[in-house]
């Protein structure tokens, strides 16, 4: 069923007598497969947009493309740069802002400006009992009560169905440029990226395609970007070549969407570790990994592995248990995802908290049951 207002949403959830599969655009089918009636959030429209206050309030079902166009007209954008999952997952559909927030989807700029959760100022949602709840608001600083917005961001529709979100938006920079090098090993690349991120030059992207490019992005006022690229070339990024404008943007769309993995049938892991641990993790996994893209200075690893057995879950998560971090199996055949925990299994006390939170927000256990393994 497709729902177009918050009132109907509350009614629909209250009246549900079985599991619900919450859907925005349906482009980002991640997690253990959910069996249930599809509830499509079609609450669309802009409630408020104040460019001078960097605030946008929209229905959760609003297509991202619409939001992007609206912001572009005012020279603004979403800061967290979420990916287009249709590329990686081979899905079709119209991605929604609710889906992006529910999945806390953030791209390369996350390393500098923050994740979707950092830019979501407020949310309205319907919990599993059909109650309408709001949290946060539309202002940039708000510590009134607990921050349930953070909890909703990244809860994948398992705690509540978002009906409306308020976002902090960002001005588009005057220009962007990238510094690019070829032929570095992952360890060399991560050291370079780390040096760039540890410089005062406000790097907004730092990525390495294993076996290919290493790239660093700068954005801002024209003079500043020129100055900073030069300073980096004269310093830690000696030998890196300058790529500007649209060509630079294309480099980052490729990383954001993990385009190198598109159209292959490999399973894909999304791994978050401390950047310096990335080379070690790659070594530990060895030949099992057929391709890898490192973003966030190495802290975000996209790993392609054959979609067989447990997709290397045991080895990967064994290493991560030693290093700290987490691994999500974002792409794999449904059978694999039903057998291998898609989300990183949590330590016992955390898992217990998650289960109890789920029980409070969704007492009947009907919202995307099983999706996150809780």
């Amino acid at each position, binding site marked *: 069923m497709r729902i177009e207002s918050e009132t109907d949403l509350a009614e629909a959830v209250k009246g549900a007598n079985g599991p619900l599969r919450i859907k925005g655009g349906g482009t980002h089918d991640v997690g253990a497969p959910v069996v249930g009636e599809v509830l499509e959030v079609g609450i669309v429209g802009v409630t408020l947009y*104040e460019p*001078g*206050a*960097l*605030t946008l309030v929209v229905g959760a079902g609003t297509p991202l493309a619409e939001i992007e166009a609206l912001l572009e007209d005012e020279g*603004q954008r979403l800061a967290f740069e979420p990916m287009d999952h249709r590329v990686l997952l081979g899905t079709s559909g119209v991605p929604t802002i609710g889906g992006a927030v529910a999945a*806390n989807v*953030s791209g390369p700029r996350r390393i500098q400006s*923050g*994740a979707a*959760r*950092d830019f979501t100022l407020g949310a309205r949602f319907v919990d599993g009992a059909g109650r309408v*709840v*709001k*949290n946060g*608001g539309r*202002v*940039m*600083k*708000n*510590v*009134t*009560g*607990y*921050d*349930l*917005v*953070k*909890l909703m961001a*990244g809860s994948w529709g398992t*705690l509540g169905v978002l009906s409306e979100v308020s976002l902090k938006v960002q*001005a588009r920079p*005057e220009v962007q440029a990238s510094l690019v090098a070829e032929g570095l090993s992952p360890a060399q690349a991560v050291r370079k990226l*780390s040096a760039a991120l*540890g*410089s*005062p030059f406000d790097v907004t992207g730092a990525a390495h395609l294993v076996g290919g490019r290493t790239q660093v992005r700068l954005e801002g*006022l024209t*003079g*500043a970007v020129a*100055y900073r690229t030069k300073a980096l070339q004269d310093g830690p990024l000696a030998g890196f070549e300058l790529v500007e404008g649209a060509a630079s943007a294309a480099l980052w769309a490729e990383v954001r969407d993990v385009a190198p993995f598109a159209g292959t049938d490999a399973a894909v892991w999304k791994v*978050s*570790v*401390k950047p310096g641990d990335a080379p070690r993790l790659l070594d530990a996994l060895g030949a099992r990994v057929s391709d890898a893209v490192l973003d966030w200075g190495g802290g*975000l690893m996209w790993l392609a592995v054959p979609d067989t057995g447990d997709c290397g879950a045991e080895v990967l998560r064994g290493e991560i248990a030693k290093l700290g*971090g987490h*691994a999500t199996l974002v792409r794999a055949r449904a059978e694999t995802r039903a057998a291998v925990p898609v*989300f990183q299994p*949590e*330590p016992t*006390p*955390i898992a217990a*908290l*998650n289960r*109890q*939170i789920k029980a*409070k*927000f969704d007492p009947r256990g009907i919202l995307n049951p099983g999706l*996150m*393994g809780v």
Partner: protein
Amino acid sequence: MQMPEPREDILARKDRIVSRLREVLPADAVIDDGIELKAYECDALSAYRCPPMCAVLPTSTAEVSAVMKICHAEGVPVVPRGSGTSLAGGALPTADSVILGVARLADVLEVDYANRFIRVEAGRTNLSVTGAVEADGFFYAPDPSSQLACAIAGNIAMNSGGAHCLKYGVTTNNLMGVKMVMADGEVIEIGGAHLDAGGLDLLGLVCGSEGQLGVVTEATLRILAKPEGARPVLIGFDSNVVAGACVSDIIKTGIVPVAIEFMDRPCIEATEAFTGAGYPDCEALLIIEVEGSEAEIDDQLSRIIAIAERHDPVEVRQSASPEQSAKIWLGRKSAFGAMGQINDYMCLDGTIPVSELPHVLGRIGELSDQYGLKVGNVFHAGDGNMHPLILYNANTPGELEKCEAMGADILKLCVEVGGCLTGEHGVGIEKRDLMGVQYTPEDLDMQMAVKDVFDPGWILNPAKVFPLDVSAARRG
């Protein structure tokens, strides 16, 4: 301000509780002497005071855990405390409570420049976190004005902000992980040196939970490379409305100053008298600071000044030296002190949409006339976080109550125009009873359900955040 009656059954067990605590802590870490307890009877909301039953100052996570196990078994309320600089009464004890101070947990545990984080014990002061990495060109961004004194533990509990959060965000945007002792003494770790949660974002939930979900003993914090330089400009206007419009225009252009601070006439006059900073004689002034290399700073400031010129400024004062920069900041930095010279004051903390600035300042002026209490406004204009300072005389009977009533009216106004009760100081006891203005019973119930999960017995800081009648059934 109402607080729950202390429970007689707990007070009756004081000796036993104190001796159990002494068994698990160093001799000098348990304080139950009446005189010494005075140090813990209030935080920076000093109009409200109540000595606790006792205070403990553990020196390790294991000791914190041992304390919590005892308090959990005894059903004793525990009020976590950092440095006691809360302006919301967050660390205010009740007579039957144990103050759990983390001031002795102050070590730096790990510094990692390659991965840009620092791990510290939570009692460490905010400024000394930056102090630990400064020599190597790094800093910890959130910078509350109280940073010399306040602890990271309190910053996490209140999700504190600072002058530079327009660019760098508040605590929650710079916190990567915590070690936390649960109400029953269990020790958990959330997050770490990696980014984002692999499952539910419990870290985001803990940050800003005002000591009600657990006792934080360690924190992993994001550190950043220090910018090459920073410089302010001061711009005076002949009306609040125009200054507000200028702020909005600057934000729209995409220049991200690190700070945009706003002061109105009463505040300007008070600081002038106190510091002689030489501020222009005007209705409103902005101090805008930008960062970068010299050339980048010049570029940004010239664009900002060009925007300001379109708003007929009374004066644009640029800085040509570090001394002049310091002078520009001098009045702003001593604003609270200056107002304090005139009288006692109450510092509010509501946030409003930036576009509502002129309207709200106008209404505050009217309320000031209506209540007969002077107000000075000094605040972080870039993000709409206001700090109206209401002047009153604590020695005049009834004046505190009048001041509180006026404060409540201002905060209700903030919510009415689309804002919130508190932007960075937290709810504590101060705004507790106004929560119903911003949230419905369902909204509050959902938040309290989270506390039910972390602290089923409601022993952690139970009398804060939620109106007492709303939380009564849960507090038992």
